[in-house]
């Protein structure tokens, strides 16, 4: 009888232990990685960077994001899920600079190291929040230099895809305009069309631009969606060979069009390096006894991708999407 009692108590204690363990343990060696969207390959490169950094460690990543960069609520839900599950860290490419602020602040308050990549948030860097950003100034400059070069310093250029909700697009456009004004004064930059970054609107803008400015020589697009819309508009108006298209950010179809010569160049973000570095920051953050540096803001240089350099190892490494690396 006494033995049965001991058995029962042991089982009860084991169950309690498991229950408490399940509730309180969380996933201390899991990093939640939330891209702007999982529908674009630019973020698969970030995924590959994270996977590469985790190779050979006991850490693992949980990768998921919205099916569109407009689904801010879904992104917030994923951040809250990471908090709820007590993940060991969070890597977030925010879709909105304001809407994600509270969720990220709560994660940091719980001691979860957060690395914000690509775009900034309305939250200062701190012990638990680092920023790994694309260098938007350099992006604008690279595009301006490229368009200035192919237009030989003369012509008309439009900027599409600028929206105040995406602070990166504003910074890119501003850098582009400043560089143009400084280095290529013979090129006219048309007034921006605010808030028009979606594919259909960008296509509509392209058609209107082509109608109102038949002399248009180049278009600089600030987002993948805007690039797709402009590409379609130029194709349908059969102006793809006359109007040079220089675009920000990379995606498989855009690089495909670049290889065909229909897109002149892409200013590619190094999301692979951002994912890799973000992962290292979090895993090092969790190493016991190590004194944490205060919150950092690191900027990653973009690269201009053209038909001439797209197959170079350096560019291909940036475009790497292997999220199951073996070495």
């Amino acid at each position, binding site marked *: 009888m006494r033995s*049965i009692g001991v058995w029962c108590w042991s089982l009860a204690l084991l169950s309690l232990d498991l229950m408490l363990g399940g509730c309180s343990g969380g996933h201390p060696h899991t990093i939640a990685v939330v891209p702007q*969207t999982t529908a674009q390959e630019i973020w698969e490169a970030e995924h590959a960077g994270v996977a590469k950094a985790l190779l050979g460690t006991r850490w693992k990543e949980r990768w998921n994001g919205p099916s569109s960069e407009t689904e801010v609520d879904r992104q917030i839900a994923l951040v809250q899920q990471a908090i709820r599950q007590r993940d060991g860290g969070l890597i977030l490419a925010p879709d909105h600079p304001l809407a994600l602020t509270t969720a990220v602040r709560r994660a940091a308050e719980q001691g979860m190291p957060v690395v914000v990549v690509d775009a900034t948030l309305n939250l200062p860097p701190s012990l638990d929040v680092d920023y790994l950003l694309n260098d938007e100034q350099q992006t604008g400059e690279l595009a301006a230099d490229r368009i200035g070069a192919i237009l030989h310093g003369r012509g008309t250029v439009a900027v599409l895809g600028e929206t105040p909700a995406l602070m990166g697009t504003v910074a890119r456009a501003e850098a582009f305009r400043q560089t143009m004004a400084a280095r290529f004064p013979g090129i006219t930059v048309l007034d921006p069309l605010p808030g028009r970054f979606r594919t259909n609107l960008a296509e509509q803008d392209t058609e209107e631009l082509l109608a109102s400015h038949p002399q248009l020589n180049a278009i600089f697009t600030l987002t993948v969606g805007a690039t797709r819309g402009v590409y379609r508009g130029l194709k349908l108006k059969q102006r793809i060979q006359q109007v040079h298209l220089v675009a920000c950010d990379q995606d498989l179809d855009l690089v495909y*069009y670049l290889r065909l010569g229909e897109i002149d160049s892409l200013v590619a973000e190094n999301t692979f390096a951002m994912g890799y570095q973000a992962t290292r920051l979090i895993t090092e953050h969790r190493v016991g006894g190590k004194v944490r540096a205060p919150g950092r803001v690191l900027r990653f240089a973009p690269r201009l991708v053209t038909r001439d350099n797209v197959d170079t190892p350096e560019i291909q490494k940036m475009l790497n999407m292997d999220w199951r690396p073996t070495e």
Partner: protein
Amino acid sequence: MSDSSRRSWWIAALAALALLAGTVAAWRWFATARPFYRDDFAQNRADEWHAVGGAWRLAAGAMHNDSDERGAKMLTGSYRWRDYRLQADVQLLGEGGDAGVVLRSKDEEPGVDAYDGYYVGVRMYDSTLLIGRSDHGWLEATPVRLPGLRSHVWYHLDVVAVGCSIAARVSELGSTNEARLFFQEPNCVRSGRIGLRSLATGAAWRNVQVKPAKEADLVALAGPAPTVLHPDFPKSEAAFNASHSFPTFDDLALQRRFFGDQEPQTEITPIASVPERVRGREAQLVTVRGTVSLTSPMLFVQDDTGGIALPDPIAPALNLGDEVEATGTPSALRDAIGAGAMLPHARVRLLWDHTPAAPLSITAGQAATGNYDARLIELQGELTGVHQETGSKMLVLELASGAQAFRAFIPAGQSAAFYRRMLPRSLLNLRGVCTLERRYTEGVTSFALLLRSSEDIDRLAGPPWWTPSRLAEIGSAILLLCLLVQYLYSRAKQWRWRAIVQERERLAHELHDTLAQSFAGVAFQLQGIRNGLEHADSAGIARVNQQIELACDVVRQTHEEASLSIAMLREEWPAGKELGSALEDCAASIVAGGNVRVVRKGRGDGRGAPAHIPVRVADALFHIGREAIVNSVRHANPTQIVLSVEYEMKHVTLAVADEGRGFNPKQQTRGFGLRGMEKRARSIGATLTITSEAGKGTRVEANAPLEEHMSTRGFWGTLRSRLRQRMAWSRNGRGGRAQRAQEAAVRRNRSRAVDTLRPSR
């Protein structure tokens, strides 16, 4: 029914319940391990499916997803399904994207590739049969061309997954056009659910079947598949773009398919400006562009400025999220108050497949202003009723929120699970297109919501628990509980009183048998002394002295008996002490100061440590032994008492013997002490034998069965033994055959021996 038999019945009932539950669990375990499924879509049933994203509905015997959402999926089956064959007809409802089936799926979440498993489907833009591995990321094999892939045509997908190999075939129904592939992955997912999935297009599925598959099925289906494919792409951009292609819109036919063959006839008008074109002017043609927010019962489109209804459009098949351009003559809303407009008979052309727009979260009060007419909105309301609209296939939810009442319309034919969730007074979160049309408001509400599917309803909270019926139920339950507690309390009290009465009865017997009779003896002696003193002479004085001596003996004896009785009331078996030693110590304390010698024999322990004897058995034997020792000291006038405790594998035997005066069993009646020993022996299933003969001493022997120790046979063995023992006790209970047999044995023994307690006088 005795307590022990009642306990036995409880244990038996619990064991039967546990057995039943175990059987059901085992049956479910084996049943869910066998992959088997055939859909009931034709019967409008899909309760077993679980949607993750998308806008799903049943129509015309098929499951439809009307959304362009990337990675919308619906799942069913068991995570334990391993090798199986999945067949389904699939139809693309858009001009882009892909649709197909999911195999061996686990860990599903909303998101494009948010599951762990495999996907096999047909893709429109490169006209291929594709397969790949998803693990919250996507790795695709080289797709296989399926020439002439078109939307709105049924294709039959046949997929076999065995081990780490997957074979697939897609064929156009009614045609010989087909494609096959054979796929392998070294570290594969070996089991999981099935699912329907589409990416960036609407789609329909029907005739979904699953059955077990073997290697031969795999080989037969792979047939002439060209090569073995592996999950290779996209790893590097260069490799992917070397083997894949994207639409370049150079093909005029393709352009027409995507965009129609008409240029906009007018400049693009923001949708919010369309009502202005209606007021005070001649009807004029307008063109709007926007995203499809609803396709049924009416087409709705919205842009960043507002939304508009497009009744009776001239349009291709459209999905939620499609970006379209519509040209038509606007008109005011039918029978509606306000400044709304619609675009009837508009010519609509598809521009692009896109992700459905997110709804605006507003309150019912805001929706009632009319400023959100034809917009996709999200709001909360309390359900007041559900009914089917007369003469239509729409289900109407009546809702209220604050001071506003509104209606929500959803296609009828929802699953039974949906109706179960829709309880009056539930708090719902709804997403749908707001409309002011009188056809839907019927003039009794300020606006109505047109929902896309049942996925547009989230039940935030069920009906409040404090309904009158619920309160009555809770009150009844509390009353029953109180009655039960009262009953148990009264029973406990009864049991306590019974124990007290029994103890008092025993004490009364004890006092009667010892002190009362002794005092009677003393009184008799004192009476004799008084009589003797009246006729005192030398002989009389001597007799008086003798009588005084006798009286002193009786008082001394009575004092000893009283001390023994008190000792018996106080003493308990010292737990943890070996039974024989405990009895030896007890006997030593009883005979202390006297001439009786206590001898211990038979220390043998055939099973090892005697501490393994159950406490309950040891306690009963201790009390039997102590009673026997006391009786011997009191009545038998022995010089020696022999104690022995023999441990065997299956039983323990206690014997207390003396060489005192003994007694003739036939001349003795049964006393309280014998009844106590019998009762204790019965409680542990022991046999009690008392042997005595006048002048030849007495021997009391109790033989008790031992339970096997738990460690030697495990938990279940112990449980089984206990159950057997409980059942035996039940049989041995009052009126039981074994008990009667035992009583007969005791009676037989009593013909040779009787209780050595003082007989009633």
